[in-house]
C-alpha cells in the first residue's frame, strides 16, 4: 500500500482551487472570449506532461493543464455572474486577438 493516489487526489484539489482565481481574473481582464486560449494552453500543458518521466511532476503538470481546460468551460458562466453583480464587473476589458470571431462560436459550458 502506498499513498501516491491519495496525495495526488489532495494535490489535485489544491490545484483545482487555483482554477477559481484563474477564471475570475481571466474573465475580468479578458472577458469570456479568452476561452479558446485557455483551453489551448490547458491541452498543450497536458500534452507536455506526456514527456515528463517523473510521475509526481507529470501528474501535477497534467492536472494544472486540466484546470485550464475546466476553467475555459467556466468562463461564460463567470461572465454572466459578473454581469449580474455577483462579482466585480469590468466594462473595459483587454481586447484579445480574434475576439470578434470567437464571439460567434458557442462557448463551452458543462
Amino acid at each position, binding site marked *: 500500500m*502506498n499513498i501516491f*493516489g491519495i496525495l495526488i487526489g489532495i494535490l489535485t484539489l489544491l490545484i483545482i482551487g487555483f482554477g477559481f482565481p484563474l477564471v475570475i481574473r481571466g474573465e475580468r481582464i479578458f472577458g469570456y472570449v479568452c476561452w479558446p486560449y485557455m483551453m489551448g494552453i490547458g491541452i498543450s500543458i497536458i500534452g507536455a506532461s*506526456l514527456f515528463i518521466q517523473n*510521475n509526481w511532476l507529470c*501528474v501535477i503538470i497534467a*492536472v494544472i493543464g*486540466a484546470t485550464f481546460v475546466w476553467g475555459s468551460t467556466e468562463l461564460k458562466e463567470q461572465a*454572466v455572474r459578473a454581469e449580474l453583480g455577483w462579482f466585480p464587473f469590468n466594462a473595459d476589458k483587454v481586447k484579445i486577438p480574434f475576439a470578434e470571431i470567437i464571439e460567434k462560436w458557442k462557448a463551452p459550458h458543462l
Partner: protein
Amino acid sequence: MFPCVLVYNYGEIMEINTIGLTAAITAFLSIWIGHVAVRKIEAASPVIWIPTVASILLGLVTEYCSLLTNNLHLKTAFGIIGVTLLWDALEFTRQQKRIIKGHAPANPNNPRHARILANSNFHATTHDLLKREPSGKRFTHN
C-alpha cells in the same frame, strides 16, 4: 491497459508517460460529473445529510481502493475520484446556500426548497439566472 508509446527524441528512444493524462482526464471528468450530480441530487433530495454522508462514505471507499491497488493508473484515478467525492459532500451544503441566495434555481416540488422559497428573509428563486448568454453589459432589471 495503457499501451507503451515510444517516441524518437534527438537520437534517443523515450517513453511517453501517460500517468499525467490519466490524472487530467480523471480530474476533468470527476469534477464535471460531480458538478452536475451535486446540483441534481441537491435539487431532488428532501434532506441533504443523506447525500452528504453517502458522498463521504463513497469517497473514503474510493480512497481505500486507491491504497489497495498496485496499478499506478488506477491508484491515481481512485485518489482523484475519492477526493472529488469528499469535496462533493461539502458542495451539497454550498449548493443549498446558493439556493438561499438565489444564485441557483430552487425546486418548488422539493419540500426543503419550498420552505426556503417561502422564507422572506431569503432571496431564493425558481429562475436560473445564469441561464443566459453574456451581453457584455451590466445586467439591469429594467
